[in-house]
């Protein structure tokens, strides 16, 4: 039987059953009521109660069934399962219609049901985090069972090609051992991030200062949407821009000085990544600068300080926690940014200080090792998860710090700004 017809039978049974439950519950309530007995809830609520609790066992069996199939238990034929589910539903409908009386707290039960469903939704949301964590950690553990953990963290050579051969069944004694030393990859990631922040922090912060302290409302209203556009541009587009426009520009520029630059230089990728992060830093900093209370500014102005002095001495220090948080969020975005570096940075792990050489990053290596028809269980594929784990931990820590700082900042200005 095809999946589609199974679904058809399932919902074709469930919905009429629930509808039937609704009618039955409501009618029974109405009959009781016409006898003049005072009831706990409205007839409608009895209808809903009966419908929902008729559907509950059906759905439960259905969901459990689907999951057990996904986990590979397929002892019971699906058709049987559906029949069981529907008969359970009918049974519960029978029981409800029999047992239901004026004392049944239908309203509360319906409320509980809805609350339960909402809670399940919230549960799914946290499951995501754990899903990420578990999926990454288990695969990373697989990786570290094959390769040395310390070799990964402290090794300076990343040379997994032989692992690929081994994966293809061509490994042998004559093939050198694969090396998974991630230092050059981490170094490249931090280096490109640093370049990005060198571009984004000054420009973003100064833009925020201009917007929040100097610009007229009209300018603000015009510029802010433009920054939002900049922030809404997909990173793949920035990547294209970096690879097709900016990289050749840099190569030509440096060639004019007789310096040779790579088409996939860290500088090109970093600068474009910086452009991508400008609006993030600008709009977050703009928010915090705006929320610095005016009376602190006035205190400085009243001492005969001019605006710029006030900004530097009073406003920025007050906003500093928020600005730091904004920069941290920017850093975490840069570390996890993928498309720009995949398209514009190198593939070669390269431990160097020269920003004009190509370098690679954690995200590039993750993508590289997962595209193509690799066997899932090769060290190369699994290395992506080890790198992902590092990325997850680092960005998580940064995010937690930055969220905490922002919280404190807002609390401070809500409390002390009586």
């Amino acid at each position, binding site marked *: 039987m095809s999946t589609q017809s199974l679904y058809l039978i399932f919902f074709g049974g469930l919905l009429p059953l629930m509808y039937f439950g609704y009618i039955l519950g409501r009618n029974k309530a109405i009959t009781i009521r016409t006898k003049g007995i005072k009831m706990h809830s409205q007839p409608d609520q009895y209808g809903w109660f009966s419908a929902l609790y008729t559907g509950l066992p059906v759905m439960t069996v259905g969901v459990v069934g689907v999951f057990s199939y996904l986990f590979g238990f397929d002892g019971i034929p699906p058709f049987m399962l559906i029949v069981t589910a529907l008969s359970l539903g009918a049974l519960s409908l029978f029981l409800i219609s029999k047992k239901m009386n004026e004392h049944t707290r239908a309203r509360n039960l319906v409320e509980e049901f809805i609350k339960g469903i909402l809670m399940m939704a919230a549960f799914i949301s946290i499951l995501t985090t754990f899903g990420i964590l578990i999926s990454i950690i288990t695969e990373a553990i697989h990786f570290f069972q094959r390769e040395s953990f310390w070799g990964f963290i402290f090794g300076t050579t990343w040379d997994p090609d032989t692992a690929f051969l081994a994966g293809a069944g061509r490994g042998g004694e004559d093939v050198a051992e694969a090396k998974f030393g991630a230092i050059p990859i981490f170094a490249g990631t931090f280096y490109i991030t640093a370049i990005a922040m060198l571009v984004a922090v000054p420009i973003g912060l100064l833009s925020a200062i201009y917007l929040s302290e100097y610009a007229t409302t009209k300018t603000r209203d015009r510029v802010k949407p433009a920054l939002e556009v900049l922030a809404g541009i997909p990173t793949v587009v920035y990547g294209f821009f970096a690879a097709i426009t900016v990289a050749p520009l840099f190569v030509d520029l440096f060639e004019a000085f007789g310096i040779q630059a790579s088409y996939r230089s860290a500088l090109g990728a970093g600068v474009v990544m910086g452009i991508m992060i400008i609006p993030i830093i600008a709009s977050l900093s703009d928010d915090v600068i705006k929320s610095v209370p005016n009376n602190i500014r006035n*205190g400085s102005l009243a001492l005969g300080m001019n605006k710029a002095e006030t900004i530097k001495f009073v406003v920025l*220090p007050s906003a500093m926690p928020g600005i730091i948080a904004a920069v941290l969020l920017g850093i975490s975005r840069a570390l996890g940014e993928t498309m720009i570096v995949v398209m514009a940075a190198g593939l070669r792990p390269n431990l160097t200080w020269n920003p004009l050489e190509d370098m690679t990053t954690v995200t590039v290596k993750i993508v590289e090792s997962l595209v193509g028809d690799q066997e899932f269980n090769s060290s190369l594929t699994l290395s992506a998860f080890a790198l992902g784990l590092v990325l997850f931990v680092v960005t998580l820590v940064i995010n937690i710090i930055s969220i905490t700082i922002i919280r404190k900042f807002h609390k401070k200005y809500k409390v002390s700004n009586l």
Partner: protein
Amino acid sequence: MSKKVDMKVDSNNFKGDMGDGEKKIKVSSKDLWLWYGEKEALQGVNLDIYEKKITAFIGPSGCGKSTYLRCLNRMNDLIDSVRIEGKVEIDGHDIYAPGVDEVAVRKRVGMVFQQPNPFPKSIYENVAYAPLMHDIVKKGSDCDELVENSLKGAGLWEEVKDMLKQPGTALSGGQQQRLCIARTIAVQPDVILMDEPTSALDPISTQIIERLMIELKERFTLIVVTHNMQQAARVADMTAFFHIGELVEYGETEQIFVNPQESRTEQYITGKFG
């Protein structure tokens, strides 16, 4: 650029009837009008404020006391919608004359606000910041001395001398307000404006600051907005009563409180409105 003072006499023009010549006019506003956009907030205020006295502004909420006060050090310039007509003179110089830098005016006319607003810096930096910027002192022992003197002048030195490196925001409300006074006097202004300086404070701190004001008038001209009639009676030499953007009555505090000339003043003082 001295100006001939036009002594036109109308209900808004009070020179005070105090014939004694010891009083020197420090601040003087001439027919000062102010609008917030279309809204008229001051209607031709003429007022002379005397040097080294405490002048109190009283009046019902929204009558324009703060607005007028902010005119005296050009803080109203910061509000975009404000339009001002008329003159404010300090020692005979119009502070709104073209070519006058408002920053320079504010150096001469300090201000203490209703909410204590210390900077997010150390106590020392709070006081030293403006004098250093204004080149009143150079970094070093001169500066230390100025900070000490200013804090002493604000009656705060004994309490904070061991914690000058602590942030100013860590002090209590009353201490914060005295820190704000200290940083204001550190700039060595002629005039200090105070907009309800004690309304956010407890009675003890209020008492300390009132005593401080009386000490400070030896050196500065003080102008204080207050909602607290007793406070005005306790500390002020002169009192001005405002009502809906208009200066209704101005005179020696005793006269205003004991023998007001205007029925509106009397009604306000006796608590009939406000």
